[in-house]
């Protein structure tokens, strides 16, 4: 048995090391501790989790490096070289019906949102006198996602608008110009900053100035500039020969930003109306904190169902239900003897997403133990893309020593790689 467990450990470690060879520091995130390995150990702030868009690698730390409580999660999707071309539609499971309407593959999460995790920590479990070294492995996936026609139609329209791009002739030509000059199309970040960020404004005003100068440059009869001639025709046709660089930029940004707004909020707008996630975990505790010592194990498997009620593109009420099976040997009696408990945790969670704030309350009841329940409230505030603040308070399952308190800042890493410094 021990050999099999060690083999699993070696294989998972090898997969992670292989992944790291292709990864950079920006692939890691420190944003949560929701992977199954940590959830099984009771290290997650919430027992109810439905992660979106898992990256290739995630590094999780619980209570800091000093306690060596650490977990790694790997999503194999990003390391598999699928035969055939990748596409946005394949990634999001979008299929086109014969009548051109869309449908979304309800099982796409198995392919794109599955992950393996490996955790190691020192923890003083309830009833124990000292910390024990524990390792855990886990797997989770999104088993089912169902969308209603309204949300699929909204997605179809968003894709169609981005696909067509800017339609005003001068906007299309200005976009062509600055792209040919080496500037990427603006995304939502630029859209929100263009009126406040002086450097960004100056950059696009300069591009617009150069664009207008090229249009009105004197033409060489032996080497005519078809692009400039076309632009001049468009300006003359619309009577805009005196157009300013500021007008070029503002008109372009207005159309561009309207086009992409719905699409770049897609994780919200295409949220399934019903979703079912599954996870499984197995952990090992070394009784004497030695590799050769006898061990105890904990096995768990749980399903999480999520019904999302949409208020608007940014605000949702999520209603979760969870059923969790545990086969737990991490128990010790007054004589220092280990014993096993088997039970189910059944419960739910209400989560209100209001722009950057997420408020939630979860309640789980443990079967066979009348007085054991978990009742925890959480608040998360997204400070920016890289940082969020989380606080939680409540009661955990044990009869004694059951206070849950959580206060912390989660952060992502951005080491300013060259690829981001354009």
């Amino acid at each position, binding site marked *: 048995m021990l050999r099999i467990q060690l083999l699993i450990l070696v294989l998972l470690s090898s997969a992670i090391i292989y992944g790291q060879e292709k990864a950079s520091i920006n692939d890691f995130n420190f944003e949560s501790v929701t992977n199954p390995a940590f959830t099984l150990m009771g290290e997650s702030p919430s027992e109810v989790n439905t992660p979106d868009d898992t990256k290739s690698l995630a590094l999780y730390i619980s209570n800091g490096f000093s306690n060596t409580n650490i977990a790694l999660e790997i999503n194999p999707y990003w390391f598999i070289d699928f035969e055939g071309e*990748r596409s*946005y539609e394949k990634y999001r499971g979008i299929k086109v019906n014969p009548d051109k309407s869309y449908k979304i593959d309800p099982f796409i999460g198995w392919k794109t949102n599955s992950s393996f995790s490996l955790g190691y920590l020192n923890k003083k479990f309830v009833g124990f006198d000292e910390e024990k070294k524990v390792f855990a492995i886990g797997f989770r996936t999104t088993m089912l996602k169902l969308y209603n026609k309204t949300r699929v139609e909204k997605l179809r329209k968003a894709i169609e608008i981005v696909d067509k791009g800017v339609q005003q002739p001068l906007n299309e030509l200005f976009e062509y110009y600055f792209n040919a*000059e080496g500037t990427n199309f603006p*995304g939502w*970040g630029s859209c929100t900053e263009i009126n406040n960020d002086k450097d960004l404004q100056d950059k696009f005003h300069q591009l617009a100035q150069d664009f207008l100068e090229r249009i009105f440059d004197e033409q060489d009869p032996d080497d005519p500039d078809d692009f400039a001639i076309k632009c001049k025709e468009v300006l003359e046709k619309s009577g805009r020969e005196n157009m300013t660089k500021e007008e070029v930029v503002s008109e372009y940004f207005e159309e561009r930003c309207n*086009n992409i707004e719905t699409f*770049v909020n897609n994780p919200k707008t295409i949220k399934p109306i019903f979703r079912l996630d599954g996870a499984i975990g197995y952990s090992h505790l070394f009784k004497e904190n030695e590799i050769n010592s006898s061990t105890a194990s904990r096995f768990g498997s749980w399903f999480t169902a999520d019904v999302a009620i949409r208020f608007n593109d940014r605000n949702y009420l999520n209603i979760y239900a969870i059923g969790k099976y545990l086969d737990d040997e991490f128990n010790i009696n007054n004589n220092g003897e280990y014993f096993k408990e088997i039970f189910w945790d059944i419960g739910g969670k209400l989560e209100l997403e209001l722009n950057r704030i997420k408020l939630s309350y979860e309640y789980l009841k443990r079967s066979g133990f009348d007085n054991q329940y978990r009742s925890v409230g959480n608040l998360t505030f997204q400070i920016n893309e890289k940082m969020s603040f989380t606080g939680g308070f409540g009661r955990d399952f044990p009869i004694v020593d059951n206070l849950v308190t959580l206060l912390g800042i989660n952060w992502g890493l951005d080491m300013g790689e060259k690829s*981001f410094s354009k």
Partner: protein
Amino acid sequence: MATFKTTLDDNPLTITIIPSSDALLDGSNKVLITIYNEDEPKKWRKIQVEEPRSKKFTADIVKIRLVKRPLIKIRTNFIVDNVSLKEQIAKVTTVAYQLDDTTNTENYVSIYDEGFDLGASDDETFSVTQRIEVSFI
């Protein structure tokens, strides 16, 4: 920089571009081809790009135009729906290029970090640029 060797004749140079990405191809200028001279890069000329089938792009260039501007720049634009996935998706994005002058065919594939522009970290857009020099023999 990749080099494509050809002879100066009346055969058109046909370029085929096939992107493969979990991102969406972006906008009305999904794939943009310009030709230019190293000494006057700002005096580039636009090449018309067609999309004969979904996600396959082609362009024909009359070779005589390449005598004065022998550098071809092909830029492919992408957009993701979740900015936190941009770098991840860019890493598994490839663009395959084929140049064909009826007597000679060459294939090229983009390599991550060479010609990839991830732009601003809070923008969902990125692009892949391939430069090919046409050498007349």
